[in-house]
């Protein structure tokens, strides 16, 4: 049974979501403010964290930042009621795995949660390490290196990089990457994959452009001569 942590100050919404998610077979823990949320996220071992942005005390972004600083790679699904596109993507830039704007259909939430959870154990299916163009991705040890430098990646970023490396220089479409890493197809105007790619690029020791954008088709890893 997967363990979820829901951090949201909206008590009514939280209790209703608890009913729905419990019915779906998840074990839910609630936190109503940022401090409690961070404490629980750091102490417990959760399979997924559902995180609201507007929280009393420290807000969702700060919580996420501190969580990632502690090198906790628990998948995070951001729930945000703020309208701005920038707000939505901001969470991804801080290391969230996916986001769902409020209001959402509960079924959509369940689908996203299941997709993120399905993806996580999948890493242990194909154990063999893959190597291409200076990248080594080792799912068994959950380790990825570039030119021998270890990369600090979130699970989503790890899966995206793994898919690209396995492609060995072939162009991988955005949809393929999204299915592999987020467990779902991309929605129109969805920038989440682009944000994840840009996050990976920022973490590369040299030549961020070695992950190349192929306009209208997807991404690929460039083989340097």
């Amino acid at each position, binding site marked *: 049974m997967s363990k979820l942590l829901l951090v949201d100050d909206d*008590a009514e919404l939280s209790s209703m979501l608890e009913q*729905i998610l419990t019915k779906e077979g998840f074990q839910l823990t609630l936190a109503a403010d940022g401090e409690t949320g961070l404490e629980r996220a750091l102490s417990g071992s959760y399979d997924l964290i559902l995180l609201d942005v507007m929280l009393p005390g420290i807000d969702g972004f700060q919580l996420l930042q501190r969580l990632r600083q502690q090198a906790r790679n628990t998948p995070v699904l951001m729930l945000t009621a703020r309208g*701005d596109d920038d*707000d939505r993507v901001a969470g991804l830039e801080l290391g969230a795995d996916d986001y769902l704007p*409020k209001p959402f259909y509960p079924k959509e939430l369940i689908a996203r949660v299941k997709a993120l959870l399905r993806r996580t154990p999948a890493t242990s299916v194909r154990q063999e390490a893959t190597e291409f163009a200076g990248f080594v991705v080792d799912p068994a040890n959950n380790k990825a290196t570039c030119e021998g430098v270890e990369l600090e990646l979130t699970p989503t970023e790890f899966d995206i990089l793994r898919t690209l490396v396995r492609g060995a220089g072939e162009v991988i479409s955005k949809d393929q990457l999204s299915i592999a890493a987020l467990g779902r197809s991309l929605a129109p105007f969805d920038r989440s994959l682009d944000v994840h790619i840009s996050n990976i690029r920022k973490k590369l020791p040299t030549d961020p452009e070695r992950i190349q954008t192929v306009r209208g088709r997807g991404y690929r890893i460039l083989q340097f001569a």
Partner: protein
Amino acid sequence: MRWYHSLSLRLLLLFWVLLFTVASSGYVLALWFSKPIEPEPVPAAVQASLAPLLSDVETFRSLTPGRLLAGDYRVAASLAPSGQERLQLDRGLAMNHRTILMRQLEAERPEQFPLGNRMLLGPFEQQDYRILLTRPITPGEREEQVLTEKQTQRVQTLALMVGSLGIAILLGAWLVMPLRRLTLAMREIAKGSEKLDLKRLPKRNDELGELARALETTAHDLAVSRDAQRRLLSDVSHELRSPLARMQVALMLSHDNDNHEEQENHMAQLGRDLERLSTIIERILSLSRLENGLVKLQREKVDTRALVEVLSKDLRYVDATEGSRLHIDTDSDWPVTESDPELLRLVIENLVRNALQYTDDRIEISCQTSANDYTMVIRDHGSGVPEDQLSQLFTPFYRADPSRNHKAGVGLGMALSLRAAAVLGGTVTARNHPDGGLEVSVNLPLTGA
């Protein structure tokens, strides 16, 4: 700006000075370049041909201005050593050239030079008697004169052209450059930039400087209001989406649930959120109407004490215990004012409801009247508001205590009060009372503005 900073005055002076300079420099240059009229000795041939005519002393003495001597030669002036009419001058010439004639009578030797369209010759002398002669100038001499005049005109034209070019450049630098810079700054504003590149323009103390400063202020105000709009939009969307999110989940739960009691719960939840949504929408609309001046003001006599008492009764009617927490100070000075009763009630009701929502103790409302205005004070006995957040109280969707988010109102009451009071010509301020609790003061004019 002082009168001597006025651009119109400066322009007038500038044009005046420049035109004067150009005109006078043209004149001076023309003088400089034109051939000066220099007397030259009377040619020997002329002297020789005139000598026999002037040799006889008696005839010489009788020569007076106007007399025709010979050919074209006429007497222009005569000077005798003594006598009643010692000095005689040709009337016509004396009118304009008296000084020249006088000077020439004193000259040491006979000379000739053009004077108007005639040639002056002399002086000729015979035993202390002196005369000056004139003759029409020859076509050859005339031609030479015209040539000199043409040259002078050319120099004058040149000086005027160079001078006016100077004016154009000066005006360009002084007037057109700032205008160009202002135009560019205007485009920057249109693009949404706040920092303008106006160089030293705002420091000028004339109309252009004033315009530049006004532009800077406008750019800043626009940026501030744009930021506020953006924040308000983001807040509004958050406030509207939160109840919607709950409603969507509650709807699904009530669909999937056969338990009647739980279904009732979800329906109640739906109802509360629906009510909340409509409150938020209605208030956002009121706020926007107030801000955009779309509210029509009614002016009538309003008894402020009666108004507050009606409000108290209404509050008690809805919820007896909540309503009875409001205490009206009947001893204080409640004026009868000229105002809009609905707006005035909106101002007070929002503040009172706010106090009721955030505190559990009594709320006191009192009033003080002075010559032109009156101040109503609403005081609660809660924990107050942190000093640094007092000014934010009137920002839409600000809540002093976010964790009580859902019990408290929608976060628009204070903002609404402030806007409504502003429409009535007054202000709303808040401070922490020294003995604890928040004190909100509404200051309004006694008669409508």
